[in-house]
């Protein structure tokens, strides 16, 4: 036994900002201000909750979490009671068992018990807690329950079943506290209380898809997931939302080789467990059967399906021929913001070191004067700023979940969020920010040059940190890894800048350039279809990886089927430089090896040595060895390149 038992006096506790609490006999010390609920979780003791939510303020309405606390006259809600020093909490006594049985009995009185046809069956807190803590029998002698409306469409995305609702208030608080939009309200009172939208209006929010996830039961459901699957029939793959550069963590849930939904996967540093509707409901884009499935080799008069090996051999031979005949600088190399870091890392080396061309890019726009400082501000660090300046609507349109972080900074930290037009002058911005000390400046990458000028002016007001919203799931990685004409990996200055993406395509179209190696799919290029088509038709050699049939697959001289984001492993880097893993969750559309393997083989045929197996994990190790910033970031950390950040 400890000294306490021997001497009878408790040992002196230093004031370390913690309090000692005992839960079911387990002693632990938790930071002051910790809720009993969270202390219990830390002690490994489960307390059932309905209304409490990790991202919302307590309301203590469901009374499911009531626990016995010594010296309190009646049971207290664990979700709203702050742990006090010396507090003795009990959850494993008959009193608490009876409370839970009682609450579940109440909740089930008017519950329709739709479980067999309810989308939440199998992942429903009402089912689960009833199994675990419920009374087992019903004592209610009345067979007719109170009825409400079922399957009410609240929007194109969300359906509400008012009968299944247990009135936990989470959806109402979600709109109050997380988005600030207040779209769902409570109406009526007593046993007739129901949630609905005011005046039956349709939901307008860009973040509706989070509702079914905050709802603990099957009251709010996704219309796109209605009657689609049971959770145990889903295969869950931890990944990153492919829709934008913000990098929200997701679970891609698939069944029968199709993605059925994206579910949020809480990363407090990035998404804070929220997804936007554009991202969440984009999942079915990945189920298309229109895919490039076989390698093809084309010459002027024929087009042949070939083996991968032959395709790679042809690619190496043709690129070499062009280089020999017209010089390596007649070859352009285009990566994509949709590629993984591992692919881009290999492609950059292949371009500059093996082929020897300076013409490397991943998009069309010129990227003059790019500096690491323009994406120094981290997403979570937004909450550390007292003033946030957002230039134009683009940042929040590009990366919608950013809006929720801004609102959190506003609501929880009292930050000022100032939205200016994208061309607001530097002087205007400085006036708007007057009084600020820690400024966060957020702009879209298309507006980065102007943002730099604004940042300089703001520097006279307070300290400024910038966040640039890059485009594409891995637009940031492409820049970090040197897929730019004017900087190399890690933003290293280049003696001779190469041609940018547009210049490469124009060069090909006009015949001043001859060959193209491109890693697709590349949405930025596809958006300029006319130029792209002229370029690839005119080029003597186009070695292309692509996933979907289109201009590139139609005219490429060597076409290699690519892997879509859920068919391969690797890492992508979000706006703030956070390196996050994606994983293969769907079978690939073709038998072709993954891009990193093909690139490695191709490089080998072109004379490179020591590139290893090309396995994505092995490439990742190479990348981390080569790039100190990525080495430090590891998996889940931020790759930072500014001197201060590195120090």
């Amino acid at each position, binding site marked *: 036994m400890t000294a306490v038992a021997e001497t009878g006096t408790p040992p002196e506790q230093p004031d370390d900002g913690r309090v000692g609490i005992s839960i079911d006999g387990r002693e632990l010390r938790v930071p002051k201000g910790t809720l009993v609920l969270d202390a219990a979780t830390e002690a490994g003791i489960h307390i059932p909750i309905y209304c409490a939510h990790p991202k919302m303020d*307590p309301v*203590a309405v469901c*009374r499911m979490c009531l626990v016995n606390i010594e010296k309190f006259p*009646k049971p207290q809600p664990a979700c709203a009671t702050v742990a006090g020093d010396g507090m003795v909490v009990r959850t494993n006594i008959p009193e608490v068992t009876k409370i839970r049985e*009682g609450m579940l*009995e109440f909740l089930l009185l008017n519950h329709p018990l739709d479980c067999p046809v309810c989308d939440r069956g199998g992942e429903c807190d009402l089912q689960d807690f009833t199994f675990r803590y419920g009374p087992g029998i019903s004592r*209610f*002698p009345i067979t007719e329950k109170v009825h409400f409306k079922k399957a009410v469409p609240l929007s194109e995305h969300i359906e509400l079943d008012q009968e299944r609702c247990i009135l936990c208030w989470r959806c109402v608080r979600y709109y109050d506290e997380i988005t600030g939009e207040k779209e769902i309200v409570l109406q009526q009172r007593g046993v007739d209380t129901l949630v609905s939208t005011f005046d039956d209006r349709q939901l307008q929010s860009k973040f509706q898809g989070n509702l079914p996830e905050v709802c603990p039961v099957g009251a709010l459901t996704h219309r796109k997931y209605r009657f689609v699957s049971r959770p145990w029939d889903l295969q869950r793959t931890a990944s990153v939302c492919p829709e934008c550069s913000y990098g929200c963590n997701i679970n891609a849930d698939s069944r029968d080789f199709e993605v059925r939904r994206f579910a949020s996967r809480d990363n407090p540093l990035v998404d804070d467990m929220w997804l936007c509707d554009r991202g969440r409901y984009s999942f079915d884009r990945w189920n298309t059967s229109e895919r490039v499935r076989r390698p093809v080799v084309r010459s002027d008069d024929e087009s042949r399906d070939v083996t991968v090996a032959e395709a790679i051999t042809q690619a190496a031979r043709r690129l070499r021929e062009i280089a020999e005949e017209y010089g390596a600088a007649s070859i352009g190399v285009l990566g994509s913001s949709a590629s993984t870091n591992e692919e881009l890392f290999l492609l950059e080396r292949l371009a500059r070191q093996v082929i020897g061309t300076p013409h490397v890019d991943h998009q069309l726009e010129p990227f003059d004067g790019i500096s690491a400082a323009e994406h120094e501000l981290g997403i979570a660090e937004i909450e550390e700023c007292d003033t946030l300046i957002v230039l134009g609507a683009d940042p929040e349109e590009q990366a919608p979940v950013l809006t929720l972080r801004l609102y959190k900074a506003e609501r929880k930290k009292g930050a000022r969020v100032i939205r200016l037009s994208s061309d607001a002058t530097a002087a205007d911005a400085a006036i708007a920010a007057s009084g600020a000390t820690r400024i966060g400046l957020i702009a879209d990458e298309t507006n980065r040059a102007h943002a730099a000028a604004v940042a300089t002016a703001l520097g006279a007001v307070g300290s400024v940190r910038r966040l640039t919203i890059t485009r594409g799931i891995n637009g940031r990685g492409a820049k970090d890894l040197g897929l730019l004409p004017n900087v190399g990996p890690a933003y290293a200055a280049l003696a001779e800048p190469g041609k940018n993406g547009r210049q490469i395509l124009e060069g090909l179209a006009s015949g001043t350039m001859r060959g193209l190696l491109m890693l697709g799919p590349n949405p930025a290029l596809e958006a300029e279809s006319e130029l792209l088509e002229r370029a690839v038709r005119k080029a003597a050699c186009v070695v292309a990886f692509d996933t979907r049939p289109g201009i590139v697959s139609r005219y490429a001289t060597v076409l290699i089927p690519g892997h879509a984001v859920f068919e391969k492993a690797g890492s992508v880097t979000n706006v703030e430089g956070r390196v996050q893993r994606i994983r293969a969750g769907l079978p690939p559309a073709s038998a072709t090896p993954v891009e990193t393997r093909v690139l490695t083989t191709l490089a080998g045929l072109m004379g490179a040595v020591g590139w290893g197996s090309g396995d994505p994990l092995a490439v990742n190790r190479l990348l981390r060895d080569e790039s100190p910033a990525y080495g430090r970031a590891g998996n889940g950390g931020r790759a930072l390149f500014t001197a201060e950040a590195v120090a």
Partner: protein
Amino acid sequence: MAEYKLLTKDFGADGLQTLKGYEKVGGYQALRDAFKKFTPETLVAEVKTSNIRGRGGAGFPTGMKWSFLPKDVFPRYLCCNADESEPGCFKDRYLIDESPHQLIEGLLIASYALQVNTSFIYIRGEYHDQRLLLERATEEARAAGYIGKNILGSGFDCDVIVHGGAGAYICGEETALIESLEGLRGQPRLKPPFPAIKGLYGQPTVVNNVETLCNLPHIVQRGGEWFKALGTDKSAGTRVFCCSGHINRPGNYEMKLGTPIRELLEEECGGIWRGQSLKAFQPGGGSMQVLLPQHLDLPLDMNAVQEAGSSLGAGAMIFMDETTCLVDVSMRLVDFYRHESCGKCVPCREGTYFESELMHRLEAGQATLAELASLADICSNMDGRCFCPLGDTATWFVMSAYKSFRDEFEAHCGAGRCPVRAQATALVA
């Protein structure tokens, strides 16, 4: 006569509802005295000395409540609770009807003591006429310089706003009142923080009952010591009791605290009607536990009634004669709570519904003994588990009646009809 008239002394005086009439009986002199004789601090101390306890139901010492306000946090707000929706309560309405200015004067005295520059009277939606009366009275008082800037040259500013509720019992609960006043759904707030720290618009706030405030002019004029000596040790002063039920003279009676309940019943209410005898009574209003004839000798004292297992609550007295079916009364009260539950928390929202469905079966003689037993268990799952006292108290009367009249409850099981009513009908016939 057993009545002791302090607040109601001048009731009935000519034109008392008007400013002139109120001034004629010495109205607003107390406000002048307050400014003259007291600083805000000494006035709070005087109210503490008086020992007055809140008349809104919980009986919390008013002076102590006032002293919880954090120093130097302004603005602060004062809300007069005129929501009076407790079954059996109609004293606040009476106090307003007869003398609206007495309430306004009390409100201003409290505002001065608490250094509040904006005070609210939150009045029950159904008290439409009383709201108009108060609005007229505040207009008069404003015109006469009792409300507004630099009142009576004291340098103290105070505005008074009369706000009508929409008719929900729960809005009498102080935090629900505050929510409703802010324009939100009338539902209680999570405590802490308590209103004294963060109340209306996030500022320190005091909520006091109409009757509590009506006492203040008298405490100012006669002194805290005098008031304290009136009534009993733990229950100083008088209270206005709303008497209803099977009595000869229902109405409001102001009694010195400590007077035996029997005196109230026999001398003021004229005893039980139709020569019948008392079966049970409910002090305090619909929330409180049932008492029996043997409790008639209890003094009207908050502690004494509490020790007997009930409470003086909000000052109602509902007397029931021998023909009354306690199951029927319980059913009606439970229906009231089912109707008034705000729906915020599970045990009250679903529990009152469960209770009421069972009580209807029981009163109709359809319930089984097992259902009766489950009723008691359901009540135990509600009491002490709810978010606010409404849900807890929704079980108190029925549980106390079940305990005191167990045979009567059991006789209903499987009887096919209400046995008590059947008997009463037989008696009459």
